[in-house]
């Protein structure tokens, strides 16, 4: 079987998703047997961008003209475009203040008044600009889900989606429910599972790094948190950490 031609790269992001892939040391030899890494700047492996790819795995949000340019060229060259990680899917950490701050003010805070400000716009998910064929969520994604994706791409398919919230795995692991028992600000009920409740298993609330689960009952989660004495502003700030613009009236 011909190895598939793959591009792996990042836009506005911390490169953590790509590093997570590189950290799959045990699986890398097998992975390299399936993939020809035509373009993977972070790993200094391949720099050919004018080829056709079987798959482009793209981390990060879109926030600069350069991001857009790279994204369009990858979209045009790739059969399958994968939004890789929470930023690529939802905007992520870079987008958390999208709804409350002005881009220009942010740029001035960072670069000052004197210099010419670089061109930049509110960080947005890939799907705002191009069609996305597959997604792996998480900040960073779970190793297992990355491997599932690569194996499925090599087999000509995509991994089947998990459609349950963090609570499902959390309860099944016999964790203490931080929302009910400790009255903490846990986002488990509205956040996509698949992480095996990694954080609540160690006593840390779900911060929502995997983004919303399908048909999340956001309005009820908000109500639950308000009942437990959290302020609306605090709840919204926490929920926006990995995805701006939740619909707080949504019940399905």
């Amino acid at each position, binding site marked *: 079987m011909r190895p598939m031609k793959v591009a792996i790269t990042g836009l506005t992001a911390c490169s953590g998703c790509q590093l997570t892939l590189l950290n799959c040391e045990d699986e890398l030899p*097998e992975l390299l047997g399936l993939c020809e890494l035509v373009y993977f700047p972070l790993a200094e492996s391949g720099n050919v961008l004018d080829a056709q790819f079987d798959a482009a795995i793209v981390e990060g949000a879109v926030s600069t003209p350069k991001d857009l340019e790279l994204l369009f060229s990858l979209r045009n060259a790739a059969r399958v475009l994968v939004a890789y990680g929470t930023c690529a899917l939802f905007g992520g950490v870079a987008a958390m203040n999208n709804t409350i701050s002005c881009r220009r003010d942010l740029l001035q805070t960072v670069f000052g008044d004197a210099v010419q400000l670089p061109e930049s716009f509110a960080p947005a998910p890939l799907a705002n600009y191009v069609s996305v064929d597959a997604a792996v969520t998480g900040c960073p994604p779970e190793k297992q889900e990355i491997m599932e994706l690569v194996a*499925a791409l090599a087999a000509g398919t995509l991994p089947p989606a998990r459609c349950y919230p963090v609570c499902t795995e959390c309860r099944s692991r*016999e*964790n*203490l429910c931080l929302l009910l*028992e400790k009255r903490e600000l846990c986002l488990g009920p509205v956040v996509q599972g698949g992480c095996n409740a990694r954080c609540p298993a160690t006593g840390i609330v779900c911060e929502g790094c995997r983004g919303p689960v399908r048909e999340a*009952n956001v309005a*009820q989660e908000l109500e639950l948190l308000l009942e437990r004495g959290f302020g609306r502003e605090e709840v919204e700030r926490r929920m926006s950490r990995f995805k701006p613009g939740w619909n707080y009236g949504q019940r399905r």
Partner: protein
Amino acid sequence: MANNFLKISRLDQFLETLRLFGELHAPTVSESGVHRFSPLEDPDELHLDYRRTQIPPKKYLFPFREEILHYGGGGYREGHSSAGDLVIFGVHSCDLEGIAYLDRVFLADRPDPGYAARRSRLTLVGIACEPDDFCFCTAATESASCDLFLSAGQDGYHITSYSARGSALLSAADHLLEERAAQPSPAISGPCYPAQDPELRFSDHPLWQKFASTCVSCGACSVCCPTCYCFDVREYPTLSGGGTRIREWDNCLFATHGEVAGANFRPDRLDRLRYRFLHKYCGFTPLQGMSSCVGCGRCKEFCPVDIDLRELTVAPEKVEP
């Protein structure tokens, strides 16, 4: 008359005897304070006064996630179900009835191989309990769906055997037991909540709308239910070229539960709640007409929004305008 009474002072020795029949599991408390069944390393870890574990013992027979098939070399083969001999000590009668219900599902016509293998190596020792505010039963009950059942007496337990394996356990522990006059045993339990009229799912009870609006579809009610067994099946290719088919606990409140490619037969949460009501209290083929609620009270205790489907069967109180 055979020896049938275990003095509390000999409980530790009795547990040691149980270990001869398999790895001993019992109710304990986790570091974070969650009641659970787990391997009993030290009798001091035993929490026999527990009310309910978060996850019922169904986890031993029907694990949350299981590799049911492996694919490779052009064919599928059965996944490995590692089953060793297991003794679970201290199971309440509701959970025993839960296992009896699952037996009817998984051991009937074309038995489930993994479940059957694990079930055949499982020894169940039940124990009497007192209902709390969440329990749906009102009095202590005894279940016969076990190998041994321990009912509380003065300074110890009266033991009843309900199987050949139970009798073997009693023989092995005979030197620890003494003879006492049997006390009248409590009512033998079964499904705790009676079967309901399926038409009730279309009632105009206002709670239907309320539950549909407040349910967060977290899945806790199914995960923690001793008789919920809906499962999803998914297949994942592996890097080495083969594949794995898993089955995983599912919940009828998830959006995908009634979905087919291109349509959803239960598009709204209300449809899904009706489905849950119907399955739980009215039963599906071939257990139609049977309630599967054993009354453990877990769904009520673990629901983040206090949904108790039983309230739908009680006529709403008339509120004067």
